[in-house]
């Protein structure tokens, strides 16, 4: 790895602008994002590889990354001792020949680490782009979850017992009137009651947080688990985007 020159894709506009002026900076190294099956194919068939730069972060940020709280960064166990993480905001593509003679450190050792890395990449890339109107519509619910999930209360316990929140839009997100179904997916083995309050109570309460909206009519909430949810229901719904609620800015 070692220090490598990082060239941004943005062209610099300065007084004596020339087409060949670019911003360059040094980074500690790169992580290859391309999957091995494509990496090992010949350059004639697959000439490019995808890279993300490694950057050094403070210990507390590294701990955030390990705890899945920094979706912009990926934890790379092989270089964690140097406090290096992959910066997923600066992904680039280069020809294989560029990296052919670089020193290599194995960043991911086990299947568990590889799978965790895949999840980080998927989290960054696979998030469903909900319509802006829906994003506004669901904000009170998101705010409530953020405020209450850490509390030692009935609601806090219920929120911590959720595996996922999904939402389905029928007939489609583009329709004039959209029927929404929210699936509050319980974790396996989660309790039936939380300090005397049932799942049904909290489901009702969370749904009441949603404002009245002429576009999203009659939103329904449902408590389910992965055994009672059909594959069709899972495919027809999307994970609610609960990120982008806070920023370190």
């Amino acid at each position, binding site marked *: 790895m070692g220090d490598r020159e990082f060239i941004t894709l943005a062209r610099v506009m300065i007084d004596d602008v020339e087409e*060949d002026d670019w911003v360059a900076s040094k980074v500690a190294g790169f992580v290859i994002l391309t999957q091995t099956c494509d990496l090992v194919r010949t350059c004639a068939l697959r000439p490019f590889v995808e890279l993300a730069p490694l950057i050094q972060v403070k210990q507390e940020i590294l701990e955030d990354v390990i705890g899945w*709280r920094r979706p912009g960064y990926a934890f790379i166990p092989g270089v964690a001792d140097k406090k290096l993480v992959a*910066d997923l905001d600066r992904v680039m593509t280069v020809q294989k020949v560029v990296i052919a003679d670089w020193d290599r450190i194995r960043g991911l050792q086990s299947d568990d680490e590889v799978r965790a890395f895949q999840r980080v990449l998927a989290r960054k890339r696979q998030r469903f782009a909900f319509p802006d109107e829906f994003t506004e519509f669901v904000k009170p619910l998101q705010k409530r979850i953020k405020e209450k999930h*850490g509390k030692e209360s009935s609601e806090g316990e219920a929120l911590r017992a959720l595996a996922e929140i999904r939402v389905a839009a029928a007939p489609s997100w583009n329709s004039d009137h959209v029927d929404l179904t929210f699936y509050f997916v319980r974790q396996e083995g989660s309790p039936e009651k939380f300090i005397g309050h049932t799942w049904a109570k909290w489901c009702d309460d969370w749904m009441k947080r949603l404002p009245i909206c002429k576009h999203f009519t009659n939103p329904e909430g449902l408590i389910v688990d992965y055994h009672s949810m*059909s594959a069709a229901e899972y495919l027809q719904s999307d994970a609610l985007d*609960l990120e982008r609620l806070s920023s*370190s800015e």
Partner: protein
Amino acid sequence: MGFIFVSLISAAVSPGSSAGIIVDPAAFRFAESKTDAGLAESRNTKKHLHSLAVLRQLTGLTWDQIGKLFGVSRRAVHFWANGKTMTAPHHEHLERSLSSMKAADKGNAPANRQSLFVTDKNGVAPFDLLVQKHYVEFVTAMGTCKPQKSTPIRLATIVSKERLPIEPTILVDAIEEPVQSIDATARRVRVHRI
């Protein structure tokens, strides 16, 4: 009505039955008991919550399919599932369907669900019989259905855990990185044009 129902069950569980199925008589006794007038008083109770959950666990039916079973909208089923009351006829149909399903249980939800929709030569599936409230015929028909796969997938706990999504409580605490200021200056680099 109760008498006719019991008679049909006797035929279904008789040793000479060609269906070759094992029926739990207790399950049918339970169904029979639900024909009592007392069932009519089930309105305003929430007993159906447990039964509905068990039926879903046994069959893996979707909410749409449960709605079809009762001839109601999915929205109505959602209401029931969230604790709203069920009418007495619907409750009776639920309990009878559940006891019939228990009698025809193939051991796991995927196998039950597959069997529910295997059609006979007339294009009738066991699920259709249940919709029509032909409970005994339903059990018989289920007995003749062979699901493609009878054992559920059992992943190791750690593998199952790895496949779960990131929990909402972690997602809401996600911190979006600010745009990074790169410590760099503009300079000329060689660009190869193709």
